């Protein structure tokens, strides 16, 4: 099986580590080899959080520069920062809702032109799926479900050797029962939104 490397990036609190973990669980349920990695450290204090999922047979959980087949960017600025990770045939899934870092919020630095980011990314990668995951999560009734929307969008790209059943089963097993229904709704919302933009 061909190895697929997925690089997740976002900001502390967006749940990208959980998203990579659920993807890993779905791979495990599907008997597909999987390894994951995540970087904690000081990332909980508003910094960048990165995690990876490598499925299909490679043993290294770490993704070197230029070797991510899929970039899951939970925030547009972080998509730009993670460009070093992708190659020309990569698929990028990017949420367009900006979370300005403190350096921007306090007026020390400027945030790049948000509206131009999807086009900028499109010129670099084979395919870009952009969606406002925060808005979609809110519409689905769980503003904290950005990671579920992103997982749905990832599935919709068809770039994964993993079924929808396996992903929803992983969500069922790996998220709190009180949020399950809304998380599944967020996932579906992500699938629909991304499918509409193929």
């Amino acid at each position: 099986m061909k190895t697929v490397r997925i690089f997740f990036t976002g900001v502390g609190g967006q749940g990208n580590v959980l998203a990579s973990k659920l993807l890993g669980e779905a791979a495990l349920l599907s008997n597909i080899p999987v390894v994951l990695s995540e970087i904690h450290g000081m990332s909980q204090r508003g910094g960048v959080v990165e995690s990876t999922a490598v499925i299909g047979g490679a043993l290294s959980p770490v993704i070197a520069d230029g070797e991510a087949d899929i970039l899951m960017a939970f925030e547009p600025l972080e998509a730009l920062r993670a460009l070093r990770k992708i190659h020309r045939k990569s698929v990028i899934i990017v949420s367009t809702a900006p979370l300005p870092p403190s350096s921007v919020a306090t007026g020390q630095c400027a945030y790049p032109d948000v509206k131009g980011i999807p086009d900028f990314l499109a010129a670099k990668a084979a395919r870009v799926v952009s969606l406002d995951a925060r808005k979609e999560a809110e519409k689905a009734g769980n503003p904290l479900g950005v990671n579920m929307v992103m997982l749905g969008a990832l599935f919709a790209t068809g770039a994964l050797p993993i079924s929808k059943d396996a992903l929803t089963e992983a969500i069922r097993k790996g998220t709190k029962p009180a949020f399950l229904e809304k998380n599944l709704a967020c996932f579906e919302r992500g699938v629909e939104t991304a499918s509409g933009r193929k």
Partner: protein
Amino acid sequence: MSILLNGKPGEKALLMGNEALVRGAYEAGLDFASCYPGTPSSEVSTLLFGLQKKADFYMEFATNEKVATEAAAGAALAGLKSMTALKHVGLNVAADPLGTLSYMGVRGAMVIYNADDPGMFSSQNEQDNRYFAQLFNVPMFEPSNAQEMKDMTVAAFALSQELGMPVIVRSTTRVAHMRGPVVFGPVSPAKKQTYFERAPKDLVSLPANARVMHVRLLERMKNAAETSEKSPFNRVEGEGTLGVITSSASVPYVLDAIRDLGLSGKVATYCLGMTWPLPEKGLARFLSGKSKVLVVEELEPWLENAVKAVAQAHGLNMPIRGKGTAGLLTRLSEYDPALVRAAIAEYFEVEDIFPDKVDASDCPPLPVRPPSLCAGCPHRMTYYAAKKAAEGLDVIFPNDIGCYTLGFMPPLQMADTVLCMGASVSVPAGLGYAVRESGQKILAFIGDSTFFHSGMTGLVHAVFNNHKFTLVILDNQITAMTGHQPSPAMDPQAADGNLTPVDIEAVARGLGVKHVQVVRPTNLKKTTAAIREALEYDGLSVIIAREPCPLSVKRHLGKQKAVKFAVDQEKCTKCRACISTFACPAFFVDNETIRIDPTLCAGCAVCVQVCPAHAIKPAKAD
């Protein structure tokens, strides 16, 4: 998380390296654990603490790694299976007991889980702790994935029990924080308690006894070397006349690279899982017949030097390279799959696979996203007050290790030195002596958990030697940085009767400090006045700035302040004092208008005291 306890033999689960280690300890029949948290090992302590309620082992948080190691040694000397988990610099603190515990040996079993941090994701240095195993004659396992984390932990306990000596399991950030499938094994029952059999000659390290112990230690290491020769964790993958020797996080990078470079059948890889003592005979066997050999390891050339020594001893003279290969295998930071692949390609003279990287040179400048003190963080309040208190004075700020080290960042910039845990209390001794005629004053900072870890001895030193400086103890009543583990400074109400909190004020007074004041940093005026008074006091002074970590209050007690605050735009003069001096991350500039993000606002109301225009008010309910 109960899968770690409930998982049946043969069952498979996706586990983080640190989780797998906990499962391994549980399978081995762990009785007792004591830890001081340190990333990347922190999850182990948190998991053990939480799981003990449903398991037969007991776990306690220690005040520091030395205490934890000695506590675990006590249990193992009495015949129990014990462990501690620490980060690489934590082993510096625990080096004293470990150096002699190896002489004494243990009677149950004892495992020290040590997590190194190449790349310094959350550490002050990237020292290579494999040298400790060699220095102290302690056998060492080095897992390279989650399954091995579990399996080698089980093996480490077994070896410790068999040889009667402590054993190290060493990981790195990548191994500790990777996730992979782990197949569970059977669980051995814990012994839970025992009777201490006296054996003073074995357990009292007086010189006369220690000389005998040293001889015994070397005999045990001989037996350990035999185990290493036969260990299934030291295995050769593939075959060929070219060779790679590797261990730890580099193992998967090497194996992936050999496959991807089409070197299968040409390069054999010796994957070392038990790295101390090294399988010397196994290495000699592996080397003989190889035309050239590459050693791939992160950090220091520890393995490389050992392999070269083995080759010399066996009269083998094929080229053996490691550090410096292709200019890539450096002693700095962590490696990654592409870096290791490039080094292997160059050394074995095959074409590398270059990923089709994208050209991002036209990317606009990207604003940095540094971590910062959270909204509502009491450390920001104390720093703000301290900065005000220091106005007009020439003040040096020795600082320490914890969330509050982020006070280094602008605009607070309240750290002039950060050395290691506890050093902010001891550095002022020599620093103060050096600058005694310069007119400079010293205002040092330390967190509550770090104070108990290694600040108290420095404070006694300061009292004893009449040093004059001010120490601010940033008491948020928890070990916040590593994930909110209990601190001895915890709120007595939260202690639940199982723990006995220790009053820092009583400690400071008991240690002989005459000027001690407790303040609530939420009151900036009073805090500023107290710190100013302390700075002007002719002697040693301690200020305890006490306010619980709001994240911990929210997570553990489910409490959150209901009132959020907002900027009254009619009153706001856009002076930006809230941003440029206080820098709470809930503030943002929206087209020249200053606003507060209600989703971030913690409701602490301290910015109300900061705003010179009195423009910050409770937000109206929607």
